[in-house]
């Protein structure tokens, strides 16, 4: 499986240089700021966008879930990184890089876990926006592979961690209720929710 992962990575990364415009686009998408910031901006918008009180409350619960899932997924990645270090692709292969060389573990990807966690949490409250965010997170994950930062399995594992953590957060939400509802109701007193 590890060999298939490496072979797939080498095939994808081998395409670098074939299409200059595509490479340029990937340099933007792969950035630490472009996709994570865009997806967080979607959460900001989601907080305000509901047409009625019920929808707004549902979306706001989704936003709180997304923030919790993002933090917990990053925590899970941090723990895995602490016990298992996988060298980055550029440490083991002669490859083309479209990004700087990070020094932390390759497996799993923290940034991909965060974006997939947001997508999964939003999918729980709005299938259409959630699907768009899943597609965005997938493009971001692909860009990280193409640019030489991660192996495909790093991204796949991150997506899996994010989806599992988010579904646990949704399932376990009743355990911490009424805390999220109290937060939203307190914000409503200040006309902020």
């Amino acid at each position, binding site marked *: 499986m590890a060999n298939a992962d490496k072979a797939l990575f080498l095939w994808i990364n081998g395409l670098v240089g074939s299409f200059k415009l595509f490479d340029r686009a990937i*340099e*933007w998408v*792969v*950035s*630490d*700021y*472009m996709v*994570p*910031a*865009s997806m*967080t*901006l979607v959460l*900001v*918008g*989601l*907080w*305000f*966008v*509901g*047409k*009625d*009180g019920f929808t*707004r409350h549902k979306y706001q619960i989704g936003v709180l879930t997304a923030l919790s899932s993002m933090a917990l997924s*990053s925590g899970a990645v941090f723990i895995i990184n602490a016990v298992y270090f996988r060298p980055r692709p550029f440490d083991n292969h002669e490859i083309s890089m479209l*990004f*700087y*060389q*990070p*020094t932390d573990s390759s497996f799993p990807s*923290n*940034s991909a876990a*965060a974006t997939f966690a947001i997508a999964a949490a939003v999918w729980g409250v709005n299938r259409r926006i959630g699907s768009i965010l899943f597609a965005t997170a997938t493009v971001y994950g692909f860009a990280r592979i193409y640019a030489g930062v991660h192996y495909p399995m790093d991204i796949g594992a991150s997506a899996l961690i994010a989806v599992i953590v988010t579904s646990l957060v949704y399932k376990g939400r009743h355990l911490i209720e*009424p805390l999220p509802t*109290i937060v939203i*109701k*307190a*914000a*409503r*007193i*200040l*006309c*902020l*929710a």
Partner: protein
Amino acid sequence: MFTFAIDYFLFVFIACFGVIQIAASLGGLKGLLLLKNPLIARAIGLIMAILGFVWFFTSEDRNINDYEGGLDANVQALFFFFGGLTALTVTLVTSSMLNMRMNGAPPAPGEGLGALSRTSYIRGLIQNLRYWRREWRTQIKPYFFG
């Protein structure tokens, strides 16, 4: 790192300001809009959000490692929070000043943002706080735990 962080803060501020205008127009929260026409407010919001991205990503190379001047994930989250908070504060203050004459029915208890469809933020907030100052002894328990 400091210049990079300031740039990131400004980028988040501009983009967030735009996104709030788009979301407020979609959600019918006229009290948060800076322009009376929701479609124009949405268009301006979209232009601001796009401008924020274009400026941030074209002005300099942003693919920089955190120990070479970029931002690590925690600092990035912190500056996103402050950028977003500043954008929200500026939106609330300016929209309250521009929509001073919006004077719809006071917010129902627990209505929150919904009241901004007919009143400005500052009016809604003051009316809400007046209600809660008067009624908190009897209402706080049923409101939060009812």
